[in-house]
């Protein structure tokens, strides 16, 4: 790249406000771009091994991941925020392998993301429009947040358009849509009973779109990058379970990978917060841990560069990667949900015990009455 060329580019940025639409396109492979940016081959291979591990592939796959990345171009990605809390975007900012800086500058072309993009207002609208027109059927779309369906979707609007309309247009012509977080996957928190805004996930709002769900509240950024890399490397979306989640990240229960499982099997449980068992890292089952009901790779992938995950820090899993977990996994500190129609403290056991006691009492009375009465015994029928 000559100095002069760069200067011309800089000027063109200033004059037209945007380079991406007009300038001549030069497509580099991710590998080339990384090299240009001064990322050493060694670091690149390190990244490839991390990705290989994140995708639950054997280590022997690392060279093919590297080779594939050497060949693929920097794909376009647009990120839409709907009924969200931006927690998944924040999770992306905490990504380590690769970092968000590398993602934005080297790996993907993030053409639209309201939380970080420089343009605003109609300039932002134009950036989205031109990207989805120019790369129709070729761009990846990430959706964060649920989509309101009630009352024509007026509970979520951007630039005067409903999120429902935006989602149908943008996800509809994307190569694939990644629903990041439980809100985008299944409606999430906004869909908690009574779901005041008719919030749903992308699959439901945009029938027919190719959607990969990456639930979690927020989604682990490592699972996002692994999904993207999976797509770049294999040219297809990963295998998914019946809830539309990639098996490499959601194929196993928390409970089956949990480091406290030996304590569960042994029968060693935390009984009170801060008790001896809690300090020793015993199983949190009795404190309401939903690990036995939750499919997610938290115990192995962990968060913030593998620093920790909920159970490791002493709090049970809340089941945040499961559809409707907001309604079905509560109350958080009880193992079982409430029996519908009863109060919070009316656990299944209390109601069951009441039921059985009631039955026993009824039969006791019945028995007593029977003991008192005089019956006519069954009679031998007259022969005939």
């Amino acid at each position, binding site marked *: 790249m000559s100095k002069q060329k760069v200067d011309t580019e800089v000027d063109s940025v200033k004059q037209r406000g945007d380079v991406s639409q007009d300038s001549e396109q030069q497509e580099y492979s991710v590998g080339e771009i990384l090299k240009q940016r001064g990322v050493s081959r060694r670091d690149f291979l390190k990244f490839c091994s991390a990705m290989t591990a994140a995708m639950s592939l054997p280590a022997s796959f690392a060279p093919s991941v590297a080779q594939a990345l050497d060949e693929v171009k920097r794909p376009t990605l647009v990120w839409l925020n709907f009924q969200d809390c931006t927690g998944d975007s924040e999770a992306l900012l905490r990504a380590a392998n690769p970092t968000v800086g590398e993602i934005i500058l080297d790996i993907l072309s993030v053409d639209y993301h309201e939380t970080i993009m420089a343009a605003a207002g109609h300039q932002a609208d134009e950036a989205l429009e031109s990207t989805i027109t120019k790369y129709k059927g070729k761009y990846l779309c990430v959706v964060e947040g649920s989509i309101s369906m009630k009352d024509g979707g007026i509970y979520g609007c951007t630039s005067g358009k409903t999120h429902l309309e935006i989602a149908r247009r943008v996800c509809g012509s994307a190569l694939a849509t990644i629903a990041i977080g439980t809100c985008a996957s299944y409606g999430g928190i906004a869909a908690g009973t009574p779901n005041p805004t008719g919030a749903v996930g992308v699959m439901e709002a945009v029938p027919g779109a190719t959607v990969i769900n990456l639930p979690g509240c927020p989604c682990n950024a490592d699972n996002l990058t692994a999904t993207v890399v999976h797509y770049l490397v294999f040219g297809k979306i990963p295998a998914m*379970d*019946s809830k539309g989640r990639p*098996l490499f990240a959601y*194929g*196993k*229960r928390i409970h*089956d990978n949990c480091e406290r499982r*030996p*304590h*569960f*099997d*042994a*029968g*060693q*449980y935390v*009984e009170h917060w801060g008790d001896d*068992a809690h300090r020793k890292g*015993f199983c949190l*089952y*009795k404190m309401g841990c*939903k690990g036995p*009901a*939750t*499919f997610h790779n938290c115990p192995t992938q962990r968060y913030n560069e593998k620093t920790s995950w909920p159970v490791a820090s002493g709090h049970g899993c809340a*089941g945040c990667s*499961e*559809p*409707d977990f907001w309604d*079905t*996994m509560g109350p958080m500190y009880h*193992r*079982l*949900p409430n*029996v519908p129609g009863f109060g919070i403290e009316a656990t*299944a*056991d209390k*109601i*069951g*015990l009441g*039921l*059985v006691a009631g*039955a*026993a009492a009824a*039969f006791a009375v*019945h*028995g007593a*009455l*029977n003991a008192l*009465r*005089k*019956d*006519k*015994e*069954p*009679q*031998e*029928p007259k022969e005939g």
Partner: protein
Amino acid sequence: MSDSCKFKCYIWELPVRWCHWINVVSIVTLAVTGFFIGTPVSFAGSASDFTMGWIRFVHFTAAYAFAVSVLSRMVWSLIGNKYAGWKEFFPYATAAGREKMNKMLRYYMFVDKEVPETIGHNPLATTAYFALFLLYILMILTGFSLYAQHAPQGVMHKSLGFMYALFSDQGMRLTHHFSMWLIFGFIINHIYSAWLMDIKEHGSEISSMFSGYKFTVKKEK
């Protein structure tokens, strides 16, 4: 046994009796272990104990025994004698059955004084048995669905796909747990009624589930 019960007839064939007692033993085992699974007590001394592990192992072993037994009984309802037949469980389907049921109900409600004679199943009881069989199936389906989740790509998990579509995971657990109480409710009723009829009918109600024979006033045709 009253003097009027002169006729001894073979009612409960061997498979029926076996199934009944396997069910009893496995349900008791499942309930005890299940209760512990639901509300464990921390009494393990070290992490290399395997208390919960064994309890779950017993639960799952009993679960297989139970499932096989329930299935066998269902098959037997197609091939066994008329007392074992599936029609017995729907007494209200025939006029005679309704009449019998009515009598029984009147007796239980202290309306009638005459103890109705039943040779095969008590028609009121079979209705409860039918409900109980539905509970059995529910327990087996929810139980195996929860169980299969340790191997989500396995055959068991795949074939129970419809269950995961019907229930949330926790909903399944709650149903499994709560239905145990419903089974307890049945058992109380059942043992009481067996005892009651044993005394009232003088037909060796209880021992019939061991021997297969009941003693009746009427001669069975």
